[in-house]
């Protein structure tokens, strides 16, 4: 029970794949300028993650170490193709907006990362919960970034006007910078800083000791 809770809840904040492990940044930067794309991407990534974690966990005792990674990649790639086909059939407009980024879920390190780090060593039920947890952890960050970007970049969310822009006689000046990919770096950076100020244990120990000026001068 305890392990199940951990598998599900730890990836939300304490072991968030984006803010702690800095994984999956590529798609988080690329498609987080609209909340709708972010929601669809979150569902797509979580589905692939659940599929790959469950299948890989099922066959974990039969995975020869020599071909382990390629078998995992094949399973992940198949899951991504199925999700891509589903999106094109049932949400074609958003599939066009997300374009290559659905296909690029294959290279999203969170998916292969969870397969390697978790599914190959745990049972199906736990792997399922781990996938849901990590999917939600990724989604949490992606959706937060998208809300900030769409709101400050356009003044609306999901096409519902929140701040009335100056062009329509309101007070809000949309900031086009938030529609550009680099803004996501700043926002994700800000979120990481906020989380690490709150949860000090996430701060990594420095890789090397900075040398102080006093020390240099005493030599």
């Amino acid at each position, binding site marked *: 029970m305890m392990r199940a809770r951990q598998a599900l809840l730890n990836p939300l904040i304490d072991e968030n794949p984006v803010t702690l492990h800095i994984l999956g940044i590529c798609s988080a930067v690329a498609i987080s300028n609209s909340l709708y794309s972010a929601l669809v991407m979150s569902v797509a990534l979580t589905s692939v993650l659940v599929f790959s974690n469950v299948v890989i966990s099922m066959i974990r005792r039969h995975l020869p170490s*020599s071909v382990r990674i390629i*078998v995992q990649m094949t399973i992940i790639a*198949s899951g991504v193709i199925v999700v891509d086909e589903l999106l094109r059939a049932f949400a074609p407009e958003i599939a066009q907006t997300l374009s290559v980024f659905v296909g690029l879920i294959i290279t999203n390190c969170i998916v292969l990362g969870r397969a390697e780090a978790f599914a190959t060593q745990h049972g199906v039920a736990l792997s399922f919960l781990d996938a849901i947890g990590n999917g939600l952890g990724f989604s949490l960050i992606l959706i937060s970034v998208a809300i900030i970007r769409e709101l400050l970049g356009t003044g609306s969310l999901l096409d519902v006007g929140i701040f009335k822009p100056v062009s329509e006689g309101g007070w809000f000046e949309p900031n086009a910078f938030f529609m550009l990919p680099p803004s996501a770096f700043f926002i994700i950076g800000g979120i990481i800083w906020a989380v690490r100020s709150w949860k000090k244990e996430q701060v990594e120990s420095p890789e090397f000791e900075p040398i102080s000026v006093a020390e240099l001068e005493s030599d």
Partner: protein
Amino acid sequence: MNNDSPLKAIMVVTVTALVCSVLVTVAAVTLRPIQRAYEDLERIRFIVRVSGLSESVETMSDLEVIGAFQDLEIRLVDLDRGAFDSSNNPDTFDAREAATEPQFRVAIPAELDVASLGTRSSLETVYLLRDGETLQRVILPIHGQGMWSTIYGFLALESDLNTIAALTISEQGETPGIGDVILNPEWQARWQGRRLYDEQRSLRFRISREVVAANTEDASYHVDGLAGATVTLNGVMNLMRYWFGPHGYSRFLQNLSETEGS
């Protein structure tokens, strides 16, 4: 069996590959009809856009677009004879697929293949807009090789079957920001009113970056090129040359203007 024996590795890889390919194939095949419906709808939207039936296709709902599309007459054209074909069903005929089927495939002679198509279908689906009995517009599908991709579009002609009413590009895979300027509505709008053939019925239409004085005879056959996208535009010019040349719609248009006599 020992997990690290080569035999086990081969078995696991084979089974995984088989199961995954079945999964992917089933998904692709079963979802194809649904995806197809959406693509058809997209195509209809492009056709309605150049038909002149509506000012703002972008804001129309799917049902409104389908409603407008109903006003068009769909016909198949036998390009070699230059006449309508009545032995196939125009509602279900797919020229893009037909170009690969032995029954309809026509190899394009190398010296005529300016748009690098290789083969085309012997029949093409065209759309006619009539006001009562009189022909108003003809909408012709066109395609050809751009820099990286095959460019697909529709060209609408006025009732004189020589003046361009509208151009739209429905599919292309040129470089975003470079070759995809052919999607620019302002540039496409410049095609309106340009003419294809001169009095001797040779194709005089040109896309080029030469400066052509406005309101001259030359200007009525000329569309400005776009800086930086010369390769893509050469592709567009070549497909115009092919589709309005002897192997394309030229004969059909000539016959149609005789029978419709406008």
